[in-house]
Structures are given as structure tokens and as C-alpha cells.
């Protein structure tokens, strides 16, 4: 059976990425028809995952994977159970429809290939996220979805709002991703487990761990940002800057559910604690109500849908954290129902926009004749969202009320929230599903007709699925809801709620919700005005806060840079050396680790005395030098003397290098001096000299102590012996030093020469930048401009010069 072959599963996971690579080329070759070919990728993956269904429905789970970095216990491994399989099917199934839809929606767009590539890239990332078994893989895919979302929101990168929204989404979800990483690492530290499947089976009492609360908060930070929970919800409405297929796919059906997915996944491990059952319902409830209220305010179809998505996510989080089995089952049912109807409604909104050119609900009406198929899909999806009997949405709502009907005040409170939220969402759903199609014809819309089949196929299929799943609820439960709920609860459970209305409090509440929804729908205009006034009175929300935070960060970094980088070389050098002296001197004082007085050798040969003497004279000459050039050369004398000492003590290679380094330092230092345009001699005031001298002495003393201390420790000959023994035998070289450099430690050397080269490039760039800025400054004064122009003229005549320098007043040469 296909399900047992890991290679196929791996191929299915990689297929969307492969298709993403091919998308630009195919689009260039085939235009919008490329989507037909590309849709094969998710379709095939979907078929592959469908083959797992019988196995999973029987209550089993499938794992597989490849070892990645065995030394770190890392693997590329997947874990398929009811939860991840349902998600995988939603992603690939809706993904197929979305790719087809995108082909029609973006037809003729010059960047269609890029768009399809991004969508498929996202699909691969999202698919990887939900099937990941290892924490690291989960995190990598989690961040990949954020990046894909960034690229897609900012797809129209010519518009400033799109760029802002993209960046905002990336900052919020990417930041949350980092928190999640910390949470996962902590989880790994506490349990020693790096795989979700093992973690679930281990049954460790994590809630007893002292780190539990930290883990919980970090994981929640990741999930809440991803799933747009209050107070991180603001990025989701802004993300509607993306083209509609993106909103339908990422920002309603799949990506925003990643947070809910992870919460459900970790529910058996982190759940069932007071903290879990307070935080999740609390934030979920706020998100539900605020999302629904904010949605009322909108007149743009996409924005209305965006806020109901936010509300729905809040509802799912609330149910996941409520703490009863029925609540989890309700969350599962609602999640599936939501993916179906919300994906369909978004695609309908896109189709309307595509055909009429507007998404303003007040400008739309009477489209039922012109777009009958779209209308049918919209109506079915809206009815499912409103929760009418027969539809899958109805089952979800019944289960929600069933879960929340309980005597205690907490349940009653959340029940009220659920009823209000559902009623408001129902009203919005009906408004979106019916308002544009009913009523008199709007001649101002011009001639409108049904879109191409790609535009209505997706909504129709999803809406019909929502209906069929409700009618044949037994099958749907057997293959999807029951395994998924069992996986979330990590114990076997059976969902058997059917669409036949059964009398009871839940049904009553459903009817109440519908009546409320109807009332709001009738008074939608009034409600909209009311909400506008309410939210205007509340003042700016976290969206504005985000802007302030970003601006504040920029201002802070400017201030910090001014403090830390004042631009005066003396300050940098002084700070560096003070710090160096402190690093060298403070630890010995703190730990009382001073070296013993070294024993002087009995006899020091005369020539050794001579070279020591030369070194000392060199240093003295540096101090006494009348001008800088002399000082530099004197420093060279001291360096040469040291090089000779190296030679005397048997380190010819070191000595050689020291000679060359000293020579070149003198040359380079002298050159730098000319560039810096200092006065030839040193005119520091006495106090400054004393201060600088003290720092120099402290550094020198520190290094002396450090060296003495390190030669005190007995010398370990292991390495010396090794290299002496093997240098000739293995590496065919007698010069041990060089053999180490080019052979034993060749990779180090490779890195080092790369650094040498980068340093060279950096110096080159610095010298040029400096030359450029000087001109800019110089051009400011009239007199200097006068000086600069003749040079420019000469330069223009010179054969080697390029044009820009002929007009120095423009400043920086463009090279």
C-alpha cells in the first residue's frame, strides 16, 4: 500500500516546492494555462494523503522519515494522525482549487508565474508544518510560512500599504516564531525529546515542571501571533492587501490555523491546567467578540471576511482551551467547517471583485442573474457559516453549544460569548452571501457576467463539500472529525452528532443565534454606524501602536548609534584599550590569580642582551620621537628586535612572518598617517598624555601578567608530538608549521584567507567612501567648490577618469 512507502510521502511533501520552482518558467511558456499543470502537484499530493485515510480512520498513526544530522539527533520525519492528516488534506485539497483559481484570477498579470511560485512555495511550507514530527522541522516550516506570507502580502510591492502590511505580518508572525523556537527548545530541555510523536506518547507530567509556565507562554506567543489572536490580531486585516487567492488560502483556510493546529497538537501535553484553561478561552473570547464587532464596521467584502476569520480563530482557540472533550470536538468540527465555507466566501469575493471591479458591499446588488453559479456557491457557503441545518456549519455550532451548556458561571459566560459571536458572524455571512446578488440591478456596475470556470469551480466545490459533509455526516465523522478529535484529545472518542435536529437546549440556542443574526442583518447599516462611533471613541488600536513601536525602535537606534558611534577615532581607540586593560586586569584581582615571579635564567648570552636592549631602545625612541614618522619607524625597530629573539629561540617561521609584518606595518602606518592629514608631530596636552600613558601601561602590564600566567601552566606535549610524528609520514612535509597551516588545519586557513580578502575589500571601500564624503562636504563652501572644480576639469581630461567626477558638486562618485 502506498501509505507505507516513505519515499512517496517524501515526494508528496516536496512536490509543491518542485512545482514552485517550475512555475515561473511554465507561466512564461503557457500563460495562465500553466495553473492547470501546476495544480497537478497539490492534487497528486492530496491523492497520496487520501490513501492514508482508512488507516488513520482505524485509529492508527503513521510516522516516517530520514535521519538528517544523527550527531544532533535531528531527523526529517513526519507524523500523520487524524489531526495532521485532516490538515494535510485541507491544504492540498483547497490548494488545488486555489491554484486553478489563481490561474483564472491572475490571468494576464505579468507576474503570474511569480505569484504561483509563491503560492506553491507556501503550500509546501504549510504541508511540512502540519506533518512535521521533529521540533526543528516544525520551526523551520513555521518560519517558511511566515516568509511565504510576507512575499504574498507584499506581492503588489509598488504600493506602500502592501509593503507595510507585508512587513507587519512578517514582524508579528516571525517574532512569534522566535518565541515558539524558545518554547520548543525549553520543552526539549525539560523532556529530552525532540519529536512530537514521542512527546505525545511519553505522557510526561509536564505541568508539574517548574518550566511549564515559561514553555506555555512562549508557545502561546507563537500560536497567538500566527493565528491573529488579540492583541496581535491587527496584522490579519492588513494582510488583505494581498491578492484575493492569497486571502482565501493563507489568511483564512490554512496559515492562520497553524497556531490553532499547534495548540491542538500540544493540548495533551500542555493542556488540562488552570493556566491553559484561563489564558486560551480568555484571549480567544476577546478575539471572537472584537473580531465580530470590528467586522460589522466594514463595507469591503474582504475586510468583512477578514474580521470574521479573526473572530472564528478566536472561537477555535477558546474552545480548544475550554477544557472539556466536547469543546475539543466542537473546535475540530468548526475548524473543518470554517476552512470550507470561508475559503469559498473569499473566492466568491474575489470573483465579484474580478467581474465588477469593486468589493464595496454598498455598491453591489442584483448580480444573481449575471453570476448564477457564483451566487449558488456564495449562498451555500453563507448558509453553512450562519449555521443552518443540513450544513456542516450547523453541526459545528450544535456541538459548540452542547459543549458550553453547563451549569457553572464560567460556561455560561463563554456560552454568551459564543452566541453573540456566532450571531454577528452569521449576520455578516448572510450579508456577504446574499446582499451582492439580491435586490435591484445596479446599472452603474456595467455589463457583468459569470467569470471563467476557474473562478467559480473553487467556491462551488468547497460550498458543496460543506453541504455534503453535513448531509452525510456519518462518513465525514468517520474519516475526518473523529480521528482528528481523537488525535487532539489523545484518546479515542467518537463524534456522532448528525444534522437531524434534536430538541434540546443547543437547538434552542441555535435558533436564538439565527434570530439574532437576522435582526442584526436587518439593522446592518445602524450597527455599522454604531460600531464606527464606538471604535472611533476607543481611539487608535494596536495597528497604530505597531507603527509607533517601529518608529520608536528607529529613533532609539539612532540615539544609541550617536552615543556608541560618535565618529571620533580617539574615543573608539580609548574605549577599546580601556576595556582591554579591564579584561586583562580585573579577573586576576577578582580571583587572586597572579603569576609567580618568574625565575630568571642564570646566564643570558651577550647577543640576547643586545637584542633585548635594541627592543627597549626602540620603545624609548617611540616615546621620545619628535614627529610621527620617527615614532613609526622606531616601533619597527622594536618589532625587528622581537623577530630576532624569535629566531634565536627556534621559531624561524614566526620570526620570518614577524619581519615581514613589521616591514609592512611601518609602510602601511606611514601611508595611513599621510591620509589622516595629521600634524607631523604630536600635540596632546600633558594631562591627555598621562591619561593615555596610564592606559597603555595598564594594557602592557595586563599582557605581561597573562603571558607569565600562561607559561606557568605545564606544557602539554600531546599536539607537538602528534605533529612531529605525523607531519612527514602523513602530509609529506618536514616543516611542521607550514604543514599545519596548509594541510592539518587547511580548512582554518581557507577561512583565514577569506577574511584577509574581505579585509582588503573593506579597506578599499572605506578609502573610497572617505574620498567621496569629503567632496560632498567640500562642495558646501564656495571657496572649496572653487578648489574642486579645476581638479574636476583636469580629471575629466585624464583618460582614466569617468564622467561623474567632472561635477564634484553632485558629491559621491557612482562607482
Amino acid at each position: 500500500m502506498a501509505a507505507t512507502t516513505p519515499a512517496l510521502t517524501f515526494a508528496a511533501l516536496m512536490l509543491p516546492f518542485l512545482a514552485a520552482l517550475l512555475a515561473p518558467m511554465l507561466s512564461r511558456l503557457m500563460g495562465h494555462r500553466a495553473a492547470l499543470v501546476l495544480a497537478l502537484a497539490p492534487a497528486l499530493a492530496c491523492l497520496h494523503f487520501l490513501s492514508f485515510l482508512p488507516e488513520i480512520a482505524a485509529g492508527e498513526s503513521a510516522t516516517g522519515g530520514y535521519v538528517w544530522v544523527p550527531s544532533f539527533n535531528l531527523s526529517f520525519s513526519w507524523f500523520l494522525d487524524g489531526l495532521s492528516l485532516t490538515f494535510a488534506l485541507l491544504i492540498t485539497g483547497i490548494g488545488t482549487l486555489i491554484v486553478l483559481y489563481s490561474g483564472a484570477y491572475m490571468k494576464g498579470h505579468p507576474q503570474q508565474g511569480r505569484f504561483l511560485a509563491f503560492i506553491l512555495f507556501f503550500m509546501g511550507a504549510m504541508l511540512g508544518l502540519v506533518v512535521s514530527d521533529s521540533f526543528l522541522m516544525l520551526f523551520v516550516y513555521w518560519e517558511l510560512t511566515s516568509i511565504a506570507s510576507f512575499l504574498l502580502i507584499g506581492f503588489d510591492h509598488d504600493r506602500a500599504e502592501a509593503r507595510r502590511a507585508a512587513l507587519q505580518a512578517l514582524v508579528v508572525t516571525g517574532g512569534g516564531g522566535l518565541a515558539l523556537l524558545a518554547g520548543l527548545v525549553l520543552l526539549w530541555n525539560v523532556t529530552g525529546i525532540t519529536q512530537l510523536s514521542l512527546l505525545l506518547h511519553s505522557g510526561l507530567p509536564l505541568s508539574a515542571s517548574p518550566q511549564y509556565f515559561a514553555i506555555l507562554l512562549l508557545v502561546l506567543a507563537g500560536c497567538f501571533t500566527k493565528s491573529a489572536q488579540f492583541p496581535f490580531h491587527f496584522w490579519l486585516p492588513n494582510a488583505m492587501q494581498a491578492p484575493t487567492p492569497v486571502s482565501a488560502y493563507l489568511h483564512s483556510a490554512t496559515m492562520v490555523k497553524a497556531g490553532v493546529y499547534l495548540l491542538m497538537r500540544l493540548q495533551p501535553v500542555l493542556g488540562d491546567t488552570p493556566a491553559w484553561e484561563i489564558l486560551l478561552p480568555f484571549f480567544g473570547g476577546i478575539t471572537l467578540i472584537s473580531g465580530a464587532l470590528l467586522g460589522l464596521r466594514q463595507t469591503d467584502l474582504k475586510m468583512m471576511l477578514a474580521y470574521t476569520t479573526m473572530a472564528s480563530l478566536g472561537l477555535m482557540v477558546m474552545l480548544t482551551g475550554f477544557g472539556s472533550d466536547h469543546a475539543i470536538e466542537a473546535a475540530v468540527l468548526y475548524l473543518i467547517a470554517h476552512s470550507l465555507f470561508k475559503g469559498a466566501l473569499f473566492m466568491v469575493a474575489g470573483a465579484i471583485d474580478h467581474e465588477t471591479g469593486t468589493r464595496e458591499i454598498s455598491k453591489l446588488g442584483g448580480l444573481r442573474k449575471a453570476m448564477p453559479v457564483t451566487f449558488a456557491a456564495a449562498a451555500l457557503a453563507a448558509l453553512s457559516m450562519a449555521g443552518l441545518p443540513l450544513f456542516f456549519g450547523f453541526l459545528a455550532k450544535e456541538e459548540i453549544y452542547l459543549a458550553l451548556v453547563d451549569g457553572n458561571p464560567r460556561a455560561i459566560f463563554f456560552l454568551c460569548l459564543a452566541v453573540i459571536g456566532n450571531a454577528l458572524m452569521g449576520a455578516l455571512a448572510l450579508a456577504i452571501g446574499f446582499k451582492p446578488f439580491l435586490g435591484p440591478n445596479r446599472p452603474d456596475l456595467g455589463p457583468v457576467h459569470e467569470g471563467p470556470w476557474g473562478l467559480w469551480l473553487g467556491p462551488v466545490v468547497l460550498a458543496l463539500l460543506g453541504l455534503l459533509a453535513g448531509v452525510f455526516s456519518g462518513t465525514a465523522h468517520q474519516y475526518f472529525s473523529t480521528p482528528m478529535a481523537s488525535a487532539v484529545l489523545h484518546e479515542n472518542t467518537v463524534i456522532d452528532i448528525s444534522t437531524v435536529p434534536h430538541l434540546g437546549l443547543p437547538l434552542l440556542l441555535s435558533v436564538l443565534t439565527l434570530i439574532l443574526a437576522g435582526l442584526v442583518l436587518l439593522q446592518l447599516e445602524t450597527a455599522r454606524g454604531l460600531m464606527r462611533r464606538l471604535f472611533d471613541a476607543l481611539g487608535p488600536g494596536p495597528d497604530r501602536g505597531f507603527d509607533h513601536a517601529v518608529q520608536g525602535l528607529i529613533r532609539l537606534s539612532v540615539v544609541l548609534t550617536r552615543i556608541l558611534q560618535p565618529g571620533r577615532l580617539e574615543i573608539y581607540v580609548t574605549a577599546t584599550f580601556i576595556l582591554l586593560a579591564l579584561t586583562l586586569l580585573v579577573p586576576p584581582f577578582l580571583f587572586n590569580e597572579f603569576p609567580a615571579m618568574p625565575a630568571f635564567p642564570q646566564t643570558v648570552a651577550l647577543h640576547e642582551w643586545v637584542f633585548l636592549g635594541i627592543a627597549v631602545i626602540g620603545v624609548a625612541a617611540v616615546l621620545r620621537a619628535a614627529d610621527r614618522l620617527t615614532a613609526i619607524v622606531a616601533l619597527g625597530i622594536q618589532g625587528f628586535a622581537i623577530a630576532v629573539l624569535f629566531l634565536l629561540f627556534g621559531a624561524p617561521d614566526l620570526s620570518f612572518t614577524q619581519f615581514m609584518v613589521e616591514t609592512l606595518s611601518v609602510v602601511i602606518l606611514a601611508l595611513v598617517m599621510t591620509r589622516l592629514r595629521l600634524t607631523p608631530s604630536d600635540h596632546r596636552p600633558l594631562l591627555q598624555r598621562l591619561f593615555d600613558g596610564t592606559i597603555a601601561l595598564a594594557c602592557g602590564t595586563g599582557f605581561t601578567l597573562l603571558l607569565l600566567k600562561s607559561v606557568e601552566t605545564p606544557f602539554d606535549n600531546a599536539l607537538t608530538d602528534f605533529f612531529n610524528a605525523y607531519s612527514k609520514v602523513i602530509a609529506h612535509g618536514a616543516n611542521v608549521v607550514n604543514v599545519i597551516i596548509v594541510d592539518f588545519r587547511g580548512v582554518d586557513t581557507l577561512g583565514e584567507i577569506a577574511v584577509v580578502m574581505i579585509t582588503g575589500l573593506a579597506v578599499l571601500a572605506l578609502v573610497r567612501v572617505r574620498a567621496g564624503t569629503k567632496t560632498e562636504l567640500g562642495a558646501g563652501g564656495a571657496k572649496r567648490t572653487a578648489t574642486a572644480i579645476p581638479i574636476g576639469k583636469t580629471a575629466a581630461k585624464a583618460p582614466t577618469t569617468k564622467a561623474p567626477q567632472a561635477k564634484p558638486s553632485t558629491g559621491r562618485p557612482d562607482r
Partner: protein
Amino acid sequence: MNTIILRTVAPVVTALTLLFSVFVLLRGHNEPGGGFIGGLIAVSGLAIYGIAFGTGAVRRALRFHPMAIAGAGLLIAMLSGLVSIFAGVPFMTGLWITPSLFGTDIPLSTVISFDVGVYLVVLGAITSIVLALEQEPGPEFPAPALRGTTSRRAETAAFAREGAPDPVTKKKRRKSGGKR
């Protein structure tokens, strides 16, 4: 130092230094020497040439931009490491062949070509730094507005890195000086 002695001796000294640097590079495997030190010696030779004739002369003599030389060196070093892939051994494993030329065995190895790469990187990068610093802000760079012109000129005379039969630089300096 625009003296006749230096300008007479410099080409010879430079040529000898460069030859010596190659010698040091090649003997490095068995006796003191190697790519790093060889490269540094070569740079000092080029520096002498630059002091005598100006940076333009050095650049012309090098033919390639020093950074290009450094880049080529890095590439050679990298490729020397990659050869081992074809032998099925880990990256950077030294491989030796000893072809016989006119009866003499010549040991060749990826280690030596790696060392040549090191030599070229050091030669190119440091020469590039030296030349960039040595160069008068002339045609290659836009002229900076000069502050304290006199002291600067005195200093330039003192440090006199510009022997410069380089016509472009000379002309520029004379002309700008005259107008100032």
C-alpha cells in the same frame, strides 16, 4: 622617495624580492617559509616599486587589479580542497602525485596549489590595501577639499610616497596647486 638611487635600484630589488618570495613559497613545505610569508615578501617588493615609481606603475606592472589576484587565489585554494571529492576522501585532504620529468621526481600536490592560493590572496589583498592608501586622492578618487593645506603639503613632502612619473597624477597636482 624620488631619488635617483632608489629609482635605479628599485626594479632590481623588486624583481629579486618577487623571485625570493616564490622561492620561499615553494620551499615552505620542508623548510621555513610558505604561502603567507611568501605573499608578504612579495607585497614588500611591490611596495618598494610603488615608493619609487608611484602606484600607477605598480598597477600597470600587475596587469590585474590586486583584488582580482586575491580572488583568483581564493578560488585556487577552494578548488584545491575540492579535488579530494573526486578521490572520494573528505574535503581538503591532501593528494599527491609524483610525475617524473627528465628523470627527476617532482612531487606535486593539492597542498602546494592550496599554498599558492594562500600566497595569491595575501599578495593581492595586502597590495590592494597598500596601493589604496598610497594613492594620492587623484584621478582614481575625487579630490578631497583640503584643510590646512600647508601642513599637509609639508607632510606629503616628508612622507613622499609619490615619486610618480605617473603623468596623470603629476599634472593634476601641479595644476590644482597652481589654481589654489
